[in-house]
């Protein structure tokens, strides 16, 4: 049975009680304890900084040339916190409730409540570090609203919130490097976990510059390597984002939870052709002021600005009047897909809808007119004033759109379409963020714990920093307290030698395939299969076909891959091949998971299970559990279920109407 180790007691008291009773490691012993952290995004960098500050000997690893590049940096919109600075009725409970409901009742209550509890501390910590959040004229912090909520609790730094938070965590990390508490290994990729007596005791990492395999000991190993959205090839993830560290952990016995829970973000720049290498997100914050619509008539040929109001269908406002354009991501994405599939799409591909700022520009312009006390103002002047306001709020996003599409979004509506953005699934962890392998932890997007079947906007940054700054330092310490009797194990131990040999053999066998096709070309084909059959909507026949296709693709990969260059040198193609091999295996597990989950919830929409109005039809009686998959060998997994108990919130059908 899976033991999630949720503390007993009232929901509000669990985390306080845990912290009051967990075991501690005294400062002299902390200096002897080594902690390995894989990945330096918000979760990894904050964990490395916080653990370093406590005095642990931390070794951090990232595949980029600097920890400051991790993909958390690309998060645009903001970070939630239950500060209630706006006096609009927010509270820890409400943030907790919104997150559970937004996750379609597939997340663990105790974890989510803890997340809501520490959310305020995150803002305080970041302000203290000098993160330049947006402020009002009075000098106080500014908030905006995001999807799936009715309060304004999102803190932001223009459209670069992720960048500013990551730089804050990066600087805290570099400070610990300077103090000698953290050793940073950039351009390194973790390629296996080393286990001794069933516990995680280190990793094998490849130095990506020299190709050398390195052995590193740790009393604990923290996987903070982010999500697996790049399995789709086209996603808003960075090109290098990968599942390899998490997948190696899975192969070593860590269960993988809810892999089919993937998030398709509604507002991305549409695909323009086969050459496309990645997709670009337009922040959800744009839905605050922008209105989403398609023409009312199939085959509409007029330009967007020439279509009169009467011929426009603001389909989100029509279907969901209570939340309008701010419905959660899964709901907004499916609604856009529904309109495009029905033939109302816009642009050359017809796979896009409009995100229109004309009304917002006019509204802001009029506010400026009254603010500045102007009179005799023409409509053009009002629009010019409105554009200034919009530019201040969303300028960098509008510029990005213009660069990519060559169109001016201040003049014509943007074209957007859903794209893969985030993965709620990940390594199964208990309340302490420990996986099913003792000593092995997963933080941030790499774990599955807080977002259920759908994540609300501005919650990923919150979770990454909560895990790293405020949760792992306690929970990892609680377990390290039992390790103080165990001295560091030299990496000459046979377990390290064996693991290194296994990694070397795998790299050699990849290199020795000497086939004809590049890793990139396999990745593209993998992406097409997963997007078509395990994307925005899924059905049993398609998923079965996808599993067969992926098994065939895996065979072809291992018989016709070509990696140019040498093993013992800087070789980005080799790195890519390693990652694609793991993505293909993960893709199969995603389809297995999606096939098993015979219900629709959050980002997982099974066509067989929907209401007459086309909304997701959840099955709480039979599927109110976390699917945790154990690897049993090639193409084989065993399902373990963690029942979800709702003590405080009563699950109901999500209603945003």
């Amino acid at each position, binding site marked *: 049975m899976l033991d999630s180790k949720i503390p007993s007691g009232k929901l509000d008291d669990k985390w306080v009680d845990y912290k009051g009773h967990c075991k501690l490691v005294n400062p002299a012993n902390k200096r002897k304890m080594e902690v390995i952290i894989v990945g330096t995004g918000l979760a990894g960098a904050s964990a490395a900084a916080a653990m370093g500050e406590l005095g642990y000997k931390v070794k951090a690893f990232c595949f980029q040339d600097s*920890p400051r*590049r991790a993909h958390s940096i690309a998060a645009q919109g903001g970070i939630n916190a239950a500060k209630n600075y706006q006096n609009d009725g927010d509270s820890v409970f409400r943030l907790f409730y919104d997150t559970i409901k937004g996750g379609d009742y597939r997340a663990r209550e105790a974890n989510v409540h803890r997340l809501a509890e520490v959310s305020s501390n995150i803002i305080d910590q970041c302000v203290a570090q000098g993160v330049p959040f947006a*402020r009002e004229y009075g000098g*106080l912090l500014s908030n905006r609203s995001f999807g799936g909520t009715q309060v304004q609790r999102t803190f932001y730094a223009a459209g670069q919130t992720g960048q500013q938070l990551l730089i804050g965590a990066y600087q805290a990390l570099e400070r610990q490097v300077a103090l000698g508490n953290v050793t940073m290994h950039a351009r390194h990729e973790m390629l296996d976990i080393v286990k001794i007596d069933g516990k995680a005791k280190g990793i094998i990492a490849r130095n990506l510059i020299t190709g050398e395999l390195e052995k590193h000991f740790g009393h604990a190993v923290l996987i903070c390597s982010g999500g697996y959205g790049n399995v789709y090839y086209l996603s808003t993830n960075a090109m290098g984002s990968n599942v390899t560290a998490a997948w190696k952990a899975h192969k070593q016995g860590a269960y993988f939870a809810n892999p089919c829970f993937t998030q398709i973000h509604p507002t991305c720049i549409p695909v323009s052709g086969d*050459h496309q290498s990645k997709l670009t997100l337009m922040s959800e914050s744009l839905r605050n002021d922008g209105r989403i619509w398609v023409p009312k008539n199939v085959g509409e040929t007029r330009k967007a600005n020439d279509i009169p109001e009467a011929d426009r269908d603001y389909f989100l406002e029509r279907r969901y009047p209570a939340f309008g354009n701010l419905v959660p991501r899964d709901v907004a994405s499916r609604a856009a897909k529904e309109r495009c599939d029905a033939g109302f799409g816009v642009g*050359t591909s017809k796979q896009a809808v409009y995100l229109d700022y004309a009304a917002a520009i006019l509204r802001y312009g009029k506010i400026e007119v009254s603010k500045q006390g102007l009179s005799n103002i023409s409509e053009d002047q009002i629009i010019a004033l409105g554009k200034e306001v919009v530019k201040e709020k969303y300028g960098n996003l509008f510029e990005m759109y213009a660069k990519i599409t060559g169109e001016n979004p201040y003049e014509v509506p943007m074209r957007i379409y859903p794209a893969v953005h985030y993965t709620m699934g990940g390594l199964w962890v208990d309340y302490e963020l420990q996986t099913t392998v003792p000593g092995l932890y997963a933080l941030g997007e790499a774990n599955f714990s807080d977002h259920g079947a759908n994540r609300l906007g501005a919650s990923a940054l919150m979770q990454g920093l909560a895990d790293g700054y405020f949760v792992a330092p306690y929970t990892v310490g609680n377990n390290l307290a039992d390790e103080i009797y165990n001295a560091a194990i030299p990496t000459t131990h046979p377990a390290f030698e064996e693991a290194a040999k296994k990694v070397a053999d795998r790299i050699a066998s990849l290199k020795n395939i000497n086939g004809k096709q590049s890793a*990139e070309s396999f990745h593209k084909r993998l992406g097409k299969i997963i997007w078509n059959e395990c994307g925005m909507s899924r059905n049993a026949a398609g998923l079965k076909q996808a599993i067969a296709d992926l098994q065939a693709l895996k065979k072809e990969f291992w018989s016709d891959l070509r990696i*140019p260059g040498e093993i013992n040198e800087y070789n980005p193609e080799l790195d890519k091949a390693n990652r694609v091999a793991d993505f293909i295996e993960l893709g199969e597990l995603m389809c297995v998971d999606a096939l098993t989950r015979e219900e629709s919830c959050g980002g997982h929409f099974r066509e067989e299970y929907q209401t007459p109005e086309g909304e997701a039809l959840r099955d709480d009686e039979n599927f109110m559990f976390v699917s945790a998959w154990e690897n049993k060998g090639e193409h084989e997994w065993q399902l373990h279920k963690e029942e979800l108990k709702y003590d405080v919130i009563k699950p109901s059908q999500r209603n945003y109407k």
Partner: protein
Amino acid sequence: MSQNTMNLKVKVWRQKNANTAGAFVTYDVAGISDEMSFLEMMDILNERLITEGGDPVAFDHDCREGICGMCSMYINGKPHGPWQANTTCQLHMRAFKDGETIVIEPWRANSFPIVKDLTVDRSAFDRIIQAGGYISVNTGNAVDGNSLPIEKQNADDAFAAAMCIGCGACVAACKNSSAMLFLSAKVSHLALLPQGAPERKSRVLNMVAQMDKEGFGSCTNTGACEATCPKEISIANIARLNKEYLGASLSAE
């Protein structure tokens, strides 16, 4: 949008590693759509090189949305290419004409040694941050975020400086390979905020010392850094850095 296709030549710097000499090699790339990004054009070239059994061109890139700061190409004599306020990954092929020859080089600076082809080692930037580019506040020490109101203008100016993505284009553009714009952005970001005040003097002195140790050149106020910066970091930050440095030097104990 309609697509136009182009046939181009790219003249690329190829260098096996830091210890070998490099040289330009010219390749033909055909059928490039003007809707492609510059790096997608490079992907097409690399895919062809791999299929033909050749060695693909190594270049750093990651987010491909202009924020991670990893991409670093010197295109037709300009860091990040011809567009203003732009990174290489956001440069699109609309910027070029059919038949054109595009020259692509790595960042060239002694403090950024070449790893391979167009990939360079920018770890010197991390070491400059380690020298003082932070506020020393351990996790859990913070007071309520709103207990410290910050004048909006200062907050906005700090943010404008903090937008630096650490790509190194400023160094690549500078005839002296100076890192002053990078350094000044961080010093300004933290000096403009009250949280940064306690370490204000030691920060600027230590960071400048580290910059010198890394071998970056001096600033002669040419302004090439500002003109090329993808995030439009202003050289007003360099003026602020000089003021901070002078003040700290005169009053340091």
